[in-house]
Structure formats: structure tokens, C-alpha cells
């Protein structure tokens, strides 16, 4: 039985969209991420769970090099996207972020119109050759972001005028407008009410058909609802990574069990 599991994990490795090997992150002298190895699969929702300060958001931000914007952050180890090292000196983080989109904890639409919010990414990447094409991209993105029906009559109203849940779906639509291959979500529902959360979760499930989605969440219920794979982080270590069902019903590590049963965290 152990053998079959081992062979399963090797086949998974070859299919991995993103694969991290021996990743260390330092904030100055603080060793925030310790020796993380993980393979994230295509067309799968992977959830990162763990108590506050465990490094799950830090690790997520390594995946599209958003940590580059923090002066004191230093990343070691290897992270590959489709086999290419994303920390290679030849890689332009701008190109990487076009492939690996990101949605943040707090909805952060640009203080511009809804249309311009979506159109900004395609514009700077030159994805549309004409106004009509851009209109089409905007409509498609808003549809895929499950917000088209709510905003189609006011595309030129400011994006900041929407409700929190709508803003977050707008941000998701904005992230998918650039046609990324992976979508990173950093606690996308923590600022939303339960109804808006349900809508976003439904959307995440929908997005899985086209993207690989990585979601950081505080809520174990949310991880259980939306993800197929779950990684449990604790104090900078990746404690356990596996099928969501297995993590929640039959954790192998005692720390995972303590966390999901509410004894730590």
C-alpha cells in the first residue's frame, strides 16, 4: 500500500503546474518559510491553511514574486512554473505575473470605472487589437467573474462604488482578464459577508475548469468546501499536504489533527 502511494506521488509530480523545492524565505533575520516542497496541479483548487503568521500568505506571494516588492524579503530554493525556474535572473516578474494572477485579501479595485478596471491588464499586455476586442474581453471576464449581470448597465461607474462582494468578484474578473494560467487568492473572502463568500466560492469552483487556483484561507470549512488539495502550514513549515478529504478526515501529522480539531491555532 505504501508503494502505490509513492508511485502516485511521482506521477503527480510530473503533472505539476507549479513545483517548489526547498523553498526558504527570510524577512531580514526572520526565517519565515522553512524548506517547503510542494507540487500544485493544474485545474485544481489547492488550499493553504494554518494559523496566523504560519507563512501561508508569504509562500503564496513567492509564487508570483510579489515578495520582490518587499526590500528585506529574500527567497531561496527553486520554484518552477511548467518546469521553468521563476526566480531565474532572466525572468521578468512582469511576464510571470501576467501568467500567475493574484487576488488580494481586501478588494482593491482601481479608483476607475468598472470597464477600466478590467481593461487595464489587457491594455498593458497588448491583448486587444481593437476597441471591439477589448469590449469582448471585458464582457467575457466579467461573465467569468460572475458579476456581469450586476454591472452590465453601469460599466462606466467607478469600481469603488460596488459592494464589498461585488468588488472582490470585480478583482477576480480583473485577474482573469489577462488570461493567467494560475490564479493566486490571498484570503479572498475574509472581508466579505457569508452571502458574498458563497458567491465567490461558487466562482472559484467554476474557475477550476480553466485555471489552477491556489487559495489561502483562515477558514477550514472554506478549504474543505472549495479545494481538492490542502496544505497545512505551521510556524513556517509545510506540515502536511494531500487530498483535502484525507487531510480533514485522516490527518497523518498530529499537528494537523490538533489544528483541524481546534486544539491549536
Amino acid at each position, binding site marked *: 500500500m505504501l508503494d502505490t502511494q509513492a508511485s502516485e506521488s511521482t506521477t503527480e509530480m510530473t503533472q505539476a503546474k507549479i513545483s517548489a523545492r526547498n523553498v526558504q524565505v527570510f524577512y531580514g533575520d526572520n526565517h519565515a518559510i522553512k524548506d517547503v516542497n510542494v507540487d500544485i496541479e493544474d485545474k485544481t483548487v489547492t488550499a493553504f491553511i494554518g494559523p496566523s503568521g504560519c507563512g501561508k500568505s508569504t509562500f503564496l506571494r513567492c509564487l508570483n514574486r510579489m515578495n520582490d516588492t518587499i526590500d528585506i524579503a529574500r527567497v531561496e530554493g527553486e520554484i518552477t512554473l511548467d518546469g521553468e525556474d521563476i526566480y531565474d535572473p532572466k525572468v521578468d516578474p512582469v511576464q510571470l505575473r501576467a501568467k500567475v*494572477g493574484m487576488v488580494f485579501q481586501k478588494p482593491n479595485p*482601481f479608483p476607475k470605472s468598472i470597464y477600466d478596471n478590467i481593461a*487595464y491588464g489587457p491594455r498593458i499586455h497588448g491583448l486587444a487589437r481593437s476597441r471591439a476586442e477589448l469590449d469582448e474581453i471585458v464582457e467575457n471576464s466579467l461573465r467569468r467573474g460572475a458579476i456581469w449581470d450586476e454591472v452590465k448597465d453601469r460599466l462606466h461607474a467607478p469600481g469603488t462604488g460596488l459592494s464589498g462582494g461585488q468588488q472582490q468578484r470585480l478583482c477576480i474578473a*480583473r485577474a482573469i482578464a489577462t488570461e493567467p494560467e494560475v490564479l493566486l487568492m490571498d484570503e479572498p473572502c475574509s472581508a466579505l459577508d457569508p452571502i458574498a463568500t458563497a458567491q465567490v466560492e461558487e466562482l472559484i469552483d467554476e474557475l477550476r475548469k480553466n485555471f489552477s487556483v491556489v487559495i489561502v484561507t483562515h477558514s477550514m470549512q472554506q478549504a474543505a468546501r472549495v479545494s481538492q488539495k490542502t496544505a497545512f502550514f505551521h510556524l513556517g513549515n509545510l506540515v502536511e499536504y494531500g487530498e483535502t478529504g484525507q487531510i480533514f478526515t485522516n490527518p497523518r501529522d498530529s499537528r494537523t489533527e490538533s489544528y483541524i480539531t481546534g486544539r491549536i491555532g
Partner: protein
Amino acid sequence: MSMGDTPRKGSLLEPDARTRRRNAAEARFHLYGLVAVCLGILALIVLLSSILSNGLSSFRQAYVTLEVSLPEDRLDKSGVRDPEVLAKVSTFGYAPLIRDAVGAEMERLGIQIEGLNEKDAGGIISNNAPARLRDHVLANSDLIGGTVTMTFLANGRIDGYFKGRVTMESAERDKNVSPEQLQLADALKEAGTLTRPFNWAFITAGDASENRAEASGLGVAILGSLYMMIVVLVLALPIGVAASIYLEEFAPKNRITDLIEVNISNLAAVPSIVFGILGLAIFINFAGLPQSAPIVGGLVLTLMTLPTIIISTRASLKAVPPSIRDAALGVGASKMQAVLHHVLPLAAPGILTGTIIGLAQALGETAPLLLIGMVAFVAEYPAAPPEGFFDPASALPVQIYNWTQRADPAFVERASGAIIVLLVFLVSMNALAIFLRRKFERRW
């Protein structure tokens, strides 16, 4: 009585000693604040009322309209209207014509004043008048032989009489003006020959010398200040904004940038006269730029304004939430695009406000300009830009300083009038800054 009852600690309706003391302290503090505010307002009222009471009168000026005959035998004996020959008649040749015109006007109105000779009667017109008449005749030589109706400034003392600066009693003791001249002025005013319209010349004319105080104006100073502000805006805004963006968004946070930051803050506190010495040494003595020129003044004021603009720009860049930068970077914008497309537009109102306040500061700055020679007497307008940047010019605050140094009492009034003009500019610039800040306040 059950044993669970808590003992009562006095009545709520009766404040205890400690509460009373605390309330008294609060009331005292309230009072101190009120007194401080009142003192501030009082100082402002005294300042404004003294300036307004001294200076408002400079916006009206006595003018006399005369019909001047231009006899050919005095101005052009040859009769060929050769401009070179015409120019040979100096202003002294024109002064008698004005005197005659005053005499003729008195005759026409039937004014008879005992003890007033012809020379004194002509003296109620400004010393500026012959020169104006001469310029007019030289430009229109066909007028010679006929008459021309022109409006001349009245002498400064006559103007002062209508403003209360000169009285019949003071005129008795004043050798510059006699009571008879004042009577004549009264009579002419009655007849409508002497009028006191709004004094546009005060805003448009150049400076004038001691003995023609009534002809002096702020035109050259306003133009000089405007040219300097253009230089400051064109240099300080782009340099300041570029420096701030680099320091705030791109520069690594290390010892060197910390040092630069500290120095910029210190630069803002350097006394302005030091910048004047710097300007004198570098721009005039070393670079060889002309003295008294707006370009030099503008360069010196740019150095002074830069720290203000940099500090306010950095503050407004800092105030843009990092989530906006994350959002832009997250969709694959480069750092530069994130700053130019998203951060800078959001910071623009703050930058604009800081710039306007910096400009207002520069507009009122006097000390450095004294050192680079802008204190000179300048009666000629500088040319249109760009040549005008290198012509001698004055500046508003320096003009005020200049006028307070002069002996003629008419300049006291004009200095206060100039302060009013300067204050109007400053207040409207600050109002614009406030308006812009309100209009574009945080939109996220």
C-alpha cells in the same frame, strides 16, 4: 437588610471633590485655548486693518483732464516734422505747454485764486506729465499746430490732499505745495476737470522716482514675480516630483537614502538669505548670469521651493494605499506603470497643493532677491519671455521693501497698497490649493 447590599458611595447628584477639581481643570484648559485663539484673531485683525486703512487709498488716484495746445513755433520751427528735429525738444520744452493748458482751463472755468502764480498753478500736475505729452506728440507728429485732450496725473501732494494726507494747515508749512494750489484743486474737482478714478496704473505702471511718486506702479514687479514663478514652476515641479517618486517608490531603503532624506528636510529649514548668497556665488559670479534678472531669482527660489515640493509629494505618495500598487503589480504592470498609471494620479491633488503652497512661499520671499540685485530701481518692463527672463525686473515683496525706504509720504500708501496686491495673490493661491484638495479628496 440583606447581606448582599453594596455600600453607597455618596450621591450621583452631588459631585465629589475630585470630580470638581477635574472639571475646574478642564474649564481652565478650555479658557486658555479660547484666549489663544482670540489673541491670534486679534493680531490678524490689527494687521489687516492697518494694511487696508493705509493701502486701500492707493487704488484711487487724482487725474486732471486738460486740453493742451501744441504750437508749431515751439515744437517744430522748421515745419518739416522730421522726427530727429522733433526729438530735440526735451521735456523741459513741453512743461510750459502743460502750464499754459492749466491756465487756459482756469480761464475757461472762470477760476480766480488770489496769490496763485502761473508756475504754481501748473505745479498741480505731475512731473510725469511733460514726458507723457512728449511721447504722445513724437508718436503722432500730425497733432502739432492743433490741440490734444489728455488726462494727466495730478501731483502727489494734490492726490494726497484728497486722501487726507495733506491738509490746508500742513500745506502752509510745506514748501512742496501751497494752500492756493489746494484751492485750485478743489475748484477743478468741482468742475469735473479733476477726477479720481480707479488707479489701474498702480497695477500696470513701472516704478517711478522720488519726485514723481504718483506715477509709480507695480507693473514691473508683478511681471518680474510672474516670470520668476514660471521659472520656479517649470524647474521645481518636474525635478521635485521626479526626485520624490524615485525616493519613495524606487530607491532602496538604506543609509544613503536615509541621509538624502534627512538632508532634504534640513534644506527646507535653511534660512532663505543663505540661498541668496548661494545664488549670488553660483548663478551670477560663477555662471555669469545677469544681475536683477528673473531667471536668477527663479533659480534661487527653485532651490528654496524644491524641499517643500519634495516633502509634500512624498507625503501624498505615501498616502496612496499599498493595495493599489499590489493591484497593479498583480495584473502584471511594471513598477513604472503602477506608479505612473495608478499611484501618481491619486497623489496628484496632494502634489498640486504642495506645489501651489511652495509657489506662494516663493512669491513672498524677499531676502534672497536682495542679494542677487533684484532690489534695483527698475522702471522698464522686461521683454516677453524667453528674452525677458534675462532682463532686469523687480519683484513684489522687494518692491514693497523698496518703497518703504523712500522719503515721499505717497510711498507709504503705495507700499501698503502693494502689500494688499501681494496678499491678494497669496490668498488666492492658497484658496486654489484648498479648493483642489477638497475637489479631489481621496476617492478610494
